[in-house]
């Protein structure tokens, strides 16, 4: 039998490093918010001739759009984000770009006024808050028959925060490199993923509860390890099938839905990881009071490396 639980500190270390990188990126690069939340205009255009992103950014700055953000999509289109444009501004901008780069085709135009943006951001924040409360209530309910419901609930929430932090970190890095923005679909994707990953955690915890009742071992660590191995097949298979379709979405649809597919991808991987290697192992550490041991283990690892 595999001893997964025995390597629990490794699981924490890996998660810690990933989150640390994300947090550093969040602190330095921050997040770029999309026009839904901060207002402005966005157009998806394609040029008949090859256009360099740098040159396009430079040209936009020359035209007075100093804060314009350019994103090059996989399909070869450019998504240009500017301040809110009126019909006249837009025509002028497109004519100027056409004069410089030749014929361009507008596939999509999107414009959000500050009033609507504020409204959207407020409601999205409320939705995230309500979702957090809803999931908390669900967790309290789901763990009502557990021996120490508070511990189970807390560990599930830590796993959930882990998933959200990883997704935010990845988007902060993507925002820095590729100008990806946090938009409504990002929030939608992250909520879907959180709901999904809580399920995985609940299924694993359910097993722990069952095995505790059966009394398969006096050692909590062994119980957790057995439960993990028993639910491993289900957790991995469900995640894999979901990953398959998300990858199909990413590779075959791309462009507009690209950010959304990537949130799902990152979220599902992070969620599967946390429900297997973080939430149940936190329970073990808590049960055994091992926090000190973990802290002492870290420099030991570092010294050996």
């Amino acid at each position, binding site marked *: 039998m595999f001893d997964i639980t025995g390597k629990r500190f490794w699981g924490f270390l890996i998660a810690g490093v990933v989150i640390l990188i994300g947090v550093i990126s969040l602190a330095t690069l921050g997040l770029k918010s999309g026009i*839904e939340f901060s207002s402005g205009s966005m157009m998806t255009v394609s040029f008949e001739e090859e256009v360099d992103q740098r040159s396009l950014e430079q040209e936009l700055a020359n035209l007075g759009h100093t804060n314009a953000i350019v994103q090059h999509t996989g399909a070869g289109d450019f998504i240009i984000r500017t301040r809110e444009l009126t*019909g006249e501004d*837009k*025509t002028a901008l497109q004519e100027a770009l056409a004069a410089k780069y030749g014929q361009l*085709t*507008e*596939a*999509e*135009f*999107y*414009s*959000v*006024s500050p*009033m*609507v943006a504020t409204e*959207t951001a407020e*409601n*999205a924040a*409320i*939705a995230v808050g*309500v*979702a957090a409360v*809803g*999931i908390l209530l*669900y967790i309290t309910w*789901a763990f009502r028959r557990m021996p120490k419901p508070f511990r189970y609930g807390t560990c599930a929430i830590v796993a959930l925060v882990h998933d959200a932090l990883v997704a935010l970190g990845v988007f902060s890095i993507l925002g820095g490199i590729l100008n990806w923005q946090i938009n*409504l*679909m990002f*929030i*939608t994707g992250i*909520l*879907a993923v*959180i*709901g*999904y990953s*809580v*399920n995985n955690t*609940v*299924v694993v915890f*359910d097993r722990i509860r069952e095995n505790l009742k059966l009394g398969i071992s006096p050692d909590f660590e062994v119980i957790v390890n057995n439960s993990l191995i*028993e639910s491993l*097949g*289900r957790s991995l*298979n*469900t995640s*894999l*099938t*979901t*990953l*398959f*379709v998300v990858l*199909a*979405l990413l*590779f*075959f*649809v791309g462009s*507009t*839905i690209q950010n*959304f*597919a990537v949130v799902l991808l990152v979220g599902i991987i992070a969620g599967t990881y946390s429900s297997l290697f973080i939430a149940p192992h936190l329970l073990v550490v808590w049960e055994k009071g091992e926090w000190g041991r973990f802290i002492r283990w870290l420099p030991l690892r570092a010294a050996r490396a």
Partner: protein
Amino acid sequence: MTRRNILALMAVLALFAFAVCTLVLPMFGREQMRLGLDLQGGIHIVYKADLSQVDPGEEASVIDGVVAVLSNRINPLGVTEPVIQKQGQDRILVELPGLSITDKEKERLSRVALLEFGELAAEDEEAKWENELGRWKPATAVIDGEEKELTSRYFKENTYVAQDSMRGIVLRFEWDEEGSKISEAVTSRLIDQPLGIFEGDEALLGEDGRPIAPFVRSVISEIGQIEGLSYNEADTLSKLLNAGRLPVPLEILYDQTVSPILGADFIDMSLKAGIIGIIVVMLFMIIYYRVPGALASLSLIFYGSLVLAIFKLVPVTLTLAGLGGFILSIGMAVDANVLIFERMKEEFRTGRRLGAAIEAGFDRAWTAIRDSNVTTFIVCGILYWLGSSIVASAPVMGFALTLFIGVAVSMFTAIVVTRTLLRLFVGSRLARRTSLFTVYTGRKNV
């Protein structure tokens, strides 16, 4: 038992046939899937009406007036299912699916289309307009003791474009009863003086780019004409004037315009992603779970047709995000099957016979299936609310709705369809070869 299974199979097949018919044929008056703006192209605009000049209590009727005028302007565009509706206190939502128009045409939709006539203001008078020809104030006349401005609100709705004897373009209009009185008073006062024509803050420009301000040569009381406009401008103006002017100016709060070509691409791409996703999931299930996996794949096909049929019947407006939700739900749909099969394998290992293992697997997995979908349902509910509360509602609501329907149907197909197929299979001769069931059956001590 066998008869019950066959009946269940018949019911499942009948439902499948119904779903396929729904998809292929126009049923219940629904010919096609309803596609969102991002999939068929079109325009989604939210206007905010400027109600600052409107008397308190009149707001609702003013907005109704705006909706009526916008409808008049939009109807000739030939959009199949236009949406023009009031939203909240001062907003008007306009959705024109499938429509492709130029920016100029788009601007025209929200043009107030009120022509105001002006006369030159004296040095000490306040001017409303200023241009190269001078400072202007509204041309007014006192009718029945009340000072009234001469504007196109007194035009009859029969303005048209014509050519004069010099082959120049003219816009001909007719004053209504009240307009005639004002016009008569104004033109008799302003003989041999210029009469400026303005729209909003700007003077009406002629084809030569100069403001139009003809000199009054005679008293005009019934029919008038505006000369010097380009044909396009005259044509647009006549249409706008006949469709009625907007009672208040509109401001664009939100604008999403998608070209129909882009939308068509998205449908193809989503279809491809969906089919490839389903195939990969099926292959995985068959390789990993053998016969149960193959049966789960069959129920996945059933699942796909049933969900799409529901989308068509409800009807769910399909957006790109909605299709994403559907494709995501394909991956999640097999979760219920995976839970059941894993349970089945365990029951099998404890030495139960195949039939008993299947039943026990279904019974014991049910609570897990139910519980594990609760959070997804909670999230769908919240997202649906979020979608309904914001202007850019379509993607978020579409995703919430399709994911919800997908997950709900997946519970049904896993419990009813896969189970029926498995039970039928147990009755067949193939079932004796337990190796068909799972790769792991040999290792009982795991």
